[in-house]
């Protein structure tokens, strides 16, 4: 069943009700005709008007007591027949109507139409989220908190129904349909001019792939974020130009490698990409030394590769691990103490539990920590439902794929400049990151800050853009970063990255940097500073005040009066 076949519910209803309606018309016609033909008292026949009146109130079982003229026995005989005929007719019609209303196809048609209408009525930018699982829920919640709108498509009707219970601030249209069908995506506003991006977050790689292809062909300009569970699928997605492919395990392995060789860069990264409003916990950094890894599956393999790149020795515990990766393999079950001892857990500095079973992972971690209390423990959480257990255990790092994907999506979507900046800092050395982290967290604290990007163009920063066009080269970056309520105070925000149209970019631009129209800035700071900065660049008066300290009156009349007063003062 594709949505195209049940587009117009009205026509479907009309088609289904054809037979009952014709039956009803026929029954009415026969009854009325018979009543006009039956001889009444004194041989006078009933007129059409009276007959129709009588049948109308009898057939609909309203049953007035009023009869135009007293009936003869012939008329009574016919009226009896009419009553039974009419009851059958109405029962059939109403029965058909109710069965139509309860019909699955019809309900789907109504729901799809309702959804499509809701989406058409969105006249502000929105994101299309495919898949409302753990990841989808996380992303939707964060988008909602950021005041962004979203449209959700989820195959499973139960999960789609859950969405309504979560109480979002903004209205979030949700359709229970298969996102791999292009028609579904079209209903969900893929081709709408308000659609800002597509997020394929279902747990099925093929569906994500289908969404990516549909988006690539139907809306080539939209950014598409795809979740990929395996390297093959990721390569496939990359082959037709999907820009953001998020493989949670590969991403984590990347972070782990980063944390091993540049812990401060890693801290900076988690601080910048965390969920807004949450505090980043400073846990100890993964130590270098011998590591033990339990479960050599897809995730395990990626982690081992990351360890290899960092030249950290690993011992693998698995029931049937293949050889050829150059590491020592202990065959067996990591949940037992004897296996862990054979893998020399006492000399190890850390353990990674990466099996596909949450209880196995917890059991491994608990046993290993008993044997060696100083172990650095990395745990993989498969189902978010078990998070209470993982919280209670207090591992050093818990790998939650849905969270990794969620953070990544939000970072890419809401702040397009963040990604190139993160790529830049990955190339810097650890000391550089250490200095930056210290500077930023001293100023803004360890709570995840607001990170946003601004393009200084006519649409996003009209006041500043006009000002720059009039007096070019006059505004320095530092001039802008002042509090619009009190310009003596600095704005609680910092510019991390500046990008110009000609592919020129500056990391941590100095306050003396002259800004030009069209520049793009990546800022970090407190949420209030974000609003203040937006006010500065969009409101001409605020901008004047921030740049010059002059509080300009608004409106022509006041401007004129002020001008006169200035001139008078100049003359006098």
């Amino acid at each position, binding site marked *: 069943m594709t949505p195209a076949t049940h587009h*117009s519910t009205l026509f479907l209803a009309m088609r289904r009700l054809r037979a009952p309606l*014709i039956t009803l018309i026929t029954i009415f016609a026969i009854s009325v005709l018979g009543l006009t033909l039956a001889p009444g008292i004194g041989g006078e026949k009933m007129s*059409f008007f009276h007959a129709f009146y009588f049948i109308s109130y009898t057939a609909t079982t309203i049953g007035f007591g009023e009869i135009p003229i007293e009936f003869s026995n012939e008329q009574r005989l016919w009226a009896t027949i009419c009553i039974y005929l009419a009851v059958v007719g109405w029962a059939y019609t109403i029965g058909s109507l109710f069965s139509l209303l309860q019909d699955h196809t019809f309900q789907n048609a109504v729901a799809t139409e309702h959804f499509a209408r809701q989406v058409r009525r969105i006249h502000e930018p929105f994101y299309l989220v495919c898949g409302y699982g753990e990841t989808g829920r996380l992303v939707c919640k964060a988008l909602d908190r950021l005041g962004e709108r979203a449209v959700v498509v989820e195959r499973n009707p139960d999960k789609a129904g859950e969405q309504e219970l979560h109480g979002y601030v903004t209205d979030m249209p949700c359709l229970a349909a298969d996102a791999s069908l292009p028609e579904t995506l079209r209903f969900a506003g893929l081709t709408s001019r308000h659609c800002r991006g597509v997020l394929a977050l279902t747990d099925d790689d093929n569906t994500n792939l289908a969404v990516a292809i549909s988006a690539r062909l139907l809306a080539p300009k939209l950014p598409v974020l795809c979740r990929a569970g395996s390297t093959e699928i990721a390569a496939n997605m990359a082959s037709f130009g999907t820009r953001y492919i998020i493989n949670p395990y590969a991403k984590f392995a990347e972070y782990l490698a980063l944390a091993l060789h540049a812990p401060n860069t890693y801290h900076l990264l988690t601080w910048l990409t965390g969920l807004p409003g949450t505090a980043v916990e400073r846990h100890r950094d993964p130590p270098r030394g011998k590591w033990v890894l339990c479960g050599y599956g897809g995730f395990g393999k990626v982690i081992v590769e990351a360890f290899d790149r960092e030249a950290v020795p690993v011992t693998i515990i698995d029931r049937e691990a293949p050889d050829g990766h150059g590491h020592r393999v202990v065959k067996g079950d990591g949940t037992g103490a004897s296996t862990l001892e054979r893998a020399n857990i006492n000399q190890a500095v850390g353990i990674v539990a990466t099996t596909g079973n949450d209880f196995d992972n917890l059991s491994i971690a608990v046993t290993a920590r008993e044997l060696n209390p100083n172990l650095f423990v990395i745990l993989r959480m498969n189902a978010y439902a078990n998070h209470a257990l993982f919280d209670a255990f207090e591992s050093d790092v818990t790998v939650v794929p849905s969270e990794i994907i969620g953070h990544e999506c939000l970072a890419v979507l809401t702040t397009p400049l963040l990604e190139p900046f993160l790529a830049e800092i990955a190339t810097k050395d650890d000391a550089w990151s250490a200095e930056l982290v210290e500077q930023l967290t001293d100023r803004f604290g360890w709570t995840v800050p607001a990170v946003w990007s601004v393009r200084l163009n006519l649409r996003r920063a009209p006041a500043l853009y006009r000002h720059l066009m009039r007096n070019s080269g006059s505004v320095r970056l530092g001039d802008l970063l002042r509090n619009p309520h009190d310009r003596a105070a600095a704005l609680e925000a910092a510019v991390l990255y500046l990008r110009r149209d000609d592919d020129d970019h500056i990391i941590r631009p100095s306050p003396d940097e002259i800004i030009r129209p069209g520049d793009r800035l990546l800022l970090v700071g407190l949420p209030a500073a974000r609003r203040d900065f937006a006010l500065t660049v969009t409101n001409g008066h605020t901008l004047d005040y921030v740049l010059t300290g002059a509080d300009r009156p608004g409106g022509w009349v006041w401007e004129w009066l002020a001008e006169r007063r200035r001139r008078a003062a100049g003359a006098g």
Partner: protein
Amino acid sequence: MNLEKVIFGFFIVLAATLNFGFFVGDLSNPEHHDIYELFAAIVVNLIATVLKFGDRTQIGAVHLSTSLVADLQLIAAAMVWGYGAHVVGTGMTPDMTAKVVSLSGGALFANVVSVIILIAETIMQRR
């Protein structure tokens, strides 16, 4: 041959012929216009309308609209008749009859359009 098409064509043509049968005759002479024929025309028109439900093509939409026009006109005619015969109390005067018949004449025009569309559709499909 398609039974559905037969029934469809039958009702559309019957609606037009019954309407015509009621319409012909002296405009204001009540004896030339039989109320049973008007009744039959209304019933057949209603059935024809319902048969046209649910066709999403352009031609189907025009079909449905002509039928709705004919229904409206015929029901108006019946109401005028009922008003004349029962409410005014003078019975069917030539004046009243002329009103009823001219309304049914309008319906007849809509029915003729409907028949023309039916013929056009048939010719167009060449099957």
